[in-house]
């Protein structure tokens, strides 16, 4: 059925033979900047930006060439080299540039280029700017490996690479203990997900004898359902870790300790969506495993509500956006779990989200730039007039995320809600509710930041950011407005050869579900206006006994749950083992050591240091050996 529609990739020709430079140029540049040290301090940021722009240019050329080809020849595979061969397994390193991965490559390099340019302004006064750009380039290279790999093992290399880059960048300001701890936390929680991916790959190798997408897709139809389900759950675990889905969501809010461009690029637009990419890429497995698919839907739904919940009660502007990111990725996972009806919409929402969320994060960075790095929204207010460009661009992102008609999010999110309703009414209602809450907390953010009275701290003089920062904001704002209209009719047919599709009737006139969504969103905006738009905002968060609010402020007690379930038992086990180690093992080894020491002290007396003594021993030895030889001859 579906599998027949998947055209085999054709061999790389022309521009496609240059695809590897997309990865190599940023990777080499990262190495160069890290190795060259202070020599490259003056031009490092420019070189790094040029490297990403190069990758973007290649991606655009490849995309253009794909557009000109017939649909059956768009997927291109470029074999690079054989990595290693073990037994009857051979691991190849190759790139797969198909309709799905090229969209990712465009998003990563496009948004990546804009964020590099933005960072030139944002990090202008940071002493370690060169290192920052080197890490960013490392991230771009790793992320491109992840999406361009033609098999799961190479994908895993990129998967680990972005984890490393994320760790390095979250804890970039390592002098802050909170940043260092946040980096470690993200790293450790990601490892849990990575374990899932490793087990999935191992299972694939056992089941299919290969980890290439082609072999897995072809073999999925014949694999026993139990194993398909198992692989599906492993992949879901991996996706949860990387995409901050419940239950591995706790690291994302802390990751906001990193510099804001990092939050925009890695923790909003690209890396955290890798989980969605993984699920969509493995659609053949999930179609054979309905239980795993249902689990994906449930995880997505729970996360979209949990993220929105967190977003309503945080005062830190970046953490509100982080909660919102969780929530939006929840939407994507939900769509990806629905099956062929949702893949295209998941990717569609992923792309539009990449634009408007990067836009809003960079806007938040611009606000922090003007507010002396303050992130508490209770200290903002009335910034609309002080920072015109930031306000306007941020507003475009705001309208896009709440789903204002004809903005980017309107198309992508409505499709997901409709697909959810078609799948299951309860899931649909949850998705609808999520849209309302999104409208509520985003309106809250806008009101607290840009409107109302000025609650600025003393000595803070908000000012507009430099051109290097506002120009990327403007470009991203344009995409926040237009990306939906641009791709609405096109993306389904484009992605069909790669992920399969159920044709959807798409029109500009909202369906009944669409009308309901608009209504819920309007209600959310109105409710927010009622609460935050009319009265004054208290300087500190008011004390409350409302358990919902308390849970939201404490990030749904994610850390506490993890601590109770995992950290404390682990620490207790480690302590017990340590005690056993000291009292049992150490003692016994010390005892054995002491026994040998005593024995050696006795044996040492045999060593006199006199040559004649040694010679005598030797002669006796000769005698014994000779006697044995001669006597054995007699016998």
């Amino acid at each position: 059925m579906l599998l027949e529609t998947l055209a085999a990739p054709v061999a790389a020709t022309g521009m496609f033979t240059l695809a590897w430079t997309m990865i190599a140029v940023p990777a080499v540049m990262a190495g160069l900047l890290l190795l060259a040290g202070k020599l490259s301090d003056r031009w490092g940021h420019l070189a790094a930006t040029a490297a990403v722009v190069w990758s973007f240019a290649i991606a655009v050329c490849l995309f253009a060439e794909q557009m000109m080809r017939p649909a059956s020849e768009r997927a291109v595979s470029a074999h690079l080299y054989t990595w290693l061969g073990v037994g009857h397994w051979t691991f190849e390193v190759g790139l797969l540039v198909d309709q799905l991965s090229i969209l990712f490559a465009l998003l990563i390099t496009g948004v990546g280029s804009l964020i590099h340019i933005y960072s030139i302004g944002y990090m202008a006064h940071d002493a370690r700017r060169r290192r920052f750009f080197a890490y960013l380039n490392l991230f771009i290279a790793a992320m491109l490996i992840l999406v361009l790999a033609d098999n799961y093992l190479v994908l895993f290399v990129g998967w680990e690479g972005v984890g490393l880059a994320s760790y390095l960048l979250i804890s970039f300001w390592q002098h802050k203990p909170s940043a260092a701890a946040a980096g470690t936390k993200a790293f450790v929680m990601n490892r849990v997900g990575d374990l899932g991916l490793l087990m999935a790959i191992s299972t694939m190798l056992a089941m299919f004898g290969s980890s290439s997408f082609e072999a897995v897709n072809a073999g999925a139809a014949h694999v026993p359902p139990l194993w398909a389900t198992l692989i599906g759950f492993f992949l879901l675990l991996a996706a949860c870790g990387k995409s901050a889905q419940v239950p591995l969501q706790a690291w994302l809010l802390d990751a906001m300790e990193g510099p804001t461009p990092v939050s925009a690029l890695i923790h909003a637009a690209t890396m955290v969506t890798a989980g969605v990419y993984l699920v969509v890429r493995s659609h053949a497995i999930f179609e054979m495993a309905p239980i795993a698919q249902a689990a994906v839907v449930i995880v997505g739904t729970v996360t979209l509500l949990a993220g929105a919940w967190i977003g309503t009660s945080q005062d830190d502007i970046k953490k509100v956006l982080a909660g919102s990111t969780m929530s939006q990725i929840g939407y994507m996972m939900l769509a990806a779990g629905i099956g062929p009806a949702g893949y295209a919409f998941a990717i569609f929402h992923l792309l539009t989200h990449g634009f408007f969320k990067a836009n809003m994060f960079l806007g938040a960075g611009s606000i922090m730039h003007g507010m002396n790095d303050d992130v508490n929204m209770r200290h903002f207010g009335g910034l609309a007039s002080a920072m015109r460009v930031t306000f306007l661009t941020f507003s475009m992102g705001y309208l896009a995320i709440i789903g204002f008609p004809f903005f980017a999010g309107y198309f992508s999110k409505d499709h997901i809600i409709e697909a959810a309703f078609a799948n299951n009414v309860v899931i649909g209602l949850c998705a609808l509710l999520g849209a309302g809450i999104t409208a509520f907390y985003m309106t809250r953010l806008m009101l607290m930041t840009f409107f109302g009275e000025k609650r600025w701290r003393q000595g803070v003089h908000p000012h507009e950011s430099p051109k290097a920062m506002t120009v990327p904001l403007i470009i991203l704002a344009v995409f926040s407005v237009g990306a939906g209209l641009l791709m609405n009719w096109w993306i389904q047919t484009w992605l069909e050869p790669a992920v399969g599709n159920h044709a959807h009737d798409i029109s500009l006139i909202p369906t009944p579900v669409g009308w309901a969504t608009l209504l819920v969103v309007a209600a959310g905006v109105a409710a927010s206006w009622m609460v935050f738009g009319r009265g004054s905002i208290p300087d500190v968060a008011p004390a409350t006994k409302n358990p919902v609010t308390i849970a939201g402020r404490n990030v749904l007690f994610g850390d506490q749950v993890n601590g109770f379930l995992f950290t404390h038992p682990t620490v207790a086990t480690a302590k017990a083992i340590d005690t056993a180690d000291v009292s049992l093992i150490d003692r016994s080894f010390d005892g054995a050591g002491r026994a040998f020491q005593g024995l050696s002290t006795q044996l040492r007396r045999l060593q006199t240091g006199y040559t004649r003594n040694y010679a005598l021993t030797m002669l006796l030895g000769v005698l014994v050996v000779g006697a044995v030889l001669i006597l054995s001859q007699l016998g």
Partner: protein
Amino acid sequence: MSPMLIPLVTGAEVTFWIGAPLAVLGALGLVFSRRAVYAALSMAVAMISLAVLYASLDAPFLAMTQIIVYTGAVMMMFLFVMMMVGVDTPDSAVETLKGQRPLAILAGIGLAALLIFAIIGSITQPAATVVEANAQFGGNPQGLANLMFGRYIFVFELASALLITAAVGAMILAHRQRVTPKRDQRELAQERMAAYADKGEHPGPLPNSGVYATTNSIAAPALLPDGSIAPKSISQTLLLRGAVIDPIPLAKVTDQTFAAIEAVEEDEDE
């Protein structure tokens, strides 16, 4: 005249029964004489006996080589080194390592017993001789030369390399690095005069060793007119080595002689 009736006593047999006990005696002398020089002489005896035995085994070339190389060169070198390090003090008879001597002798006897036990009856083929092999090229040295420069040429070359290496190695081992510049005669003379000017030390030659009725060894110090020992009359090296002879008993003989002569003169005077 039949060999069955008259025991066949050949020249080789006579030589063996004379040479073998001499060799064993020499070896025992080497092991048991307490003075190193006697040990060296015993060793020479053993080696010459072995040379004779070689001759009786139809190996005249080796017999000559044995005498020239061992008794001539090697033993001379031993004696030379003995002179350098001192030959006077006999080794102490006390064994310092506990149980070393009885165990060593036991092990040696055991080794001899084992070897002899293995040798006796081991030769099963009829005795051959090297007479034919010697005659093949017109003599023993010619036969050896044929083998050495033919079949064993590489071994021979290696042996020459070994000898060169050994010579160089010995030079390096025995070489002493000079740490201070060599002082010439002028400087030495000036030092002596300066010492005389400063401390009144005698600038002339040192006094010679003592000359006594029973010895004129350099190990015997001279006596000053008042009967005390002149410290500068013996070498510092001998003093350090503890080889100095006590001159007081030696001088007693002279004193007694003088006393006897004086007694005679007094008698005559009376």
